[in-house]
């Protein structure tokens, strides 16, 4: 690890040490914050007794469904819009403002349409993630170096070969960014939906624990979510760095 990495680690450790100290010494009330060490023991407790397994499984499956549909639909829509510039000019301002509209307000309407199942949550996660995927797909297609297209033409590659050997490798970093954002957004969509109204899932259990002043469980579950999302993000990030290094080596 670099020198800066060590300093960074030191700062993070000091921050959690400070939280632990102010919580233990009673500078903040237990009703507000519990010491980080207790969050960890609570999480270990939750995972070892398996009492939340059902909720964790439900949330993860819902996120996976939202993610897969957002990535595939977003990719196809991005390709189509890239091919149809007039339609794209129509959609561009809407995409630019898309994330300023709070989609959560439509959640109750999805519940009326599809019932209290997991479907409304999948749709919520999908709606939140799909536009990030569309935008990044179009960005990637815009930035294929023209010389590569010419190379394909001089080598008389067919459309399938062009897609496989030229388009896919040169858009890969952008597609990867789209997938990375989709992961984060589908988590946000699903968990926020579970907060608002749901009978099962991690978000529901956090809201339930909050309502019952059960801070131990609440912070344990929060730690689980944040740990999970950070781990996923970090592994995607390091994979991306590896890809980029390979590319720069040629």
């Amino acid at each position, binding site marked *: 690890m670099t020198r800066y990495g060590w300093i960074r680690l030191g700062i993070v450790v000091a921050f959690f040490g400070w939280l632990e100290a102010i919580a233990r010494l009673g500078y903040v009330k237990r009703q507000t914050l519990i010491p980080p060490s207790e969050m960890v023991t609570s999480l270990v407790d939750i995972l070892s007794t398996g009492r939340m397994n059902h909720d964790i499984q439900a949330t993860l499956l819902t996120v996976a469904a939202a993610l897969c549909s957002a990535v595939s639909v977003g990719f196809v829509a991005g390709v189509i819009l890239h091919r149809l510039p007039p339609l794209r000019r129509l959609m561009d301002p809407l995409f630019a*403002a898309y994330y300023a509209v*709070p989609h959560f307000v*439509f959640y109750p309407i999805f519940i009326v349409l599809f019932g209290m199942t997991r479907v409304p949550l999948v749709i919520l996660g999908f709606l939140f993630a799909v536009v990030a995927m569309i935008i990044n797909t179009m960005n990637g297609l815009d930035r294929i170096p023209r010389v590569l297209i010419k190379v394909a033409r001089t080598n008389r590659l067919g459309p399938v070969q062009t897609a496989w050997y030229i388009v896919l490798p040169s858009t890969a970093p952008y597609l990867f960014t789209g997938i990375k954002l989709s992961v984060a957004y589908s988590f946000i969509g699903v968990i926020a939906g579970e907060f608002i109204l749901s009978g099962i899932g991690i978000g529901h259990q956090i809201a339930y624990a909050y309502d019952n002043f059960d801070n131990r469980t609440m912070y344990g579950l929060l730690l689980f979510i944040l740990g999970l999302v950070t781990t996923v*993000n970090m592994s995607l990030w390091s994979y991306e760095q590896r890809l980029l290094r390979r590319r720069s080596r040629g």
Partner: protein
Amino acid sequence: MRDRLIHIGSVLLFVFAVWQVLHWITGSIAVTSPAETVNRLAEMMRTPDFWGHARETMAAFSQALAIALGGGLLIGLVLGGWRPAGLVFEPILIAIYSIPKVTLYPVILLMFGLGLSAKVAFGAIHGIIPVAIFTLNAVRSLNPVYLRAARSMRLSPSQMALKILIPATLPEIVTGFRIGFSLTLLGSLIGELFASQRGLGFLIMRAVNVYDVKSIFAVTLLIAGVAIAVNSAMLALDQRLHRRM
């Protein structure tokens, strides 16, 4: 200018056409028609009660925005100007940026209680990080030739800021502000949706609880309209600044 107006008109026409078709497919139980929704919005806007809620949302949002923009700018300038600090803190900022902040809502409520300050805090934590990251990168990637030129011309610190620093970093900072604006709005609205007794988000939640689809769509139309208008204006400014560079 005329092309621009035609473009905006066709975008609006497209949105309303898709909306109307959705209404025909699902019926008023799920999607009220554009005409009904606009009528309902006009009706709501005639009541003084509505403007009280709108003012509340504006108050929460503008305070959150001031914190997000001011704080983000300050953090970005310090971390961008002082290289070691930037190298230490940038990954931390990016990690915080990518965590789902919705999940932190109960924690914010426990710290700030129900009310205005929780909404402000929630809006601000959504917006402050992107502003900081964009400012940091703008300052860091400042062309060193500019700084050397400024030094050889013996510019005073204030001239330095006015003639070099601000013009060179402005486009990136405006991009950061644009994203910060959207996220702060999202954050403060989510705050109102989850737990609040006042504001436009509360109006939506009240409509949700009695399943008043018309009002849900009316308030959402207003919020979306304002958000899209401000965002488009900032995007136009953003693109103009980037072209000038």
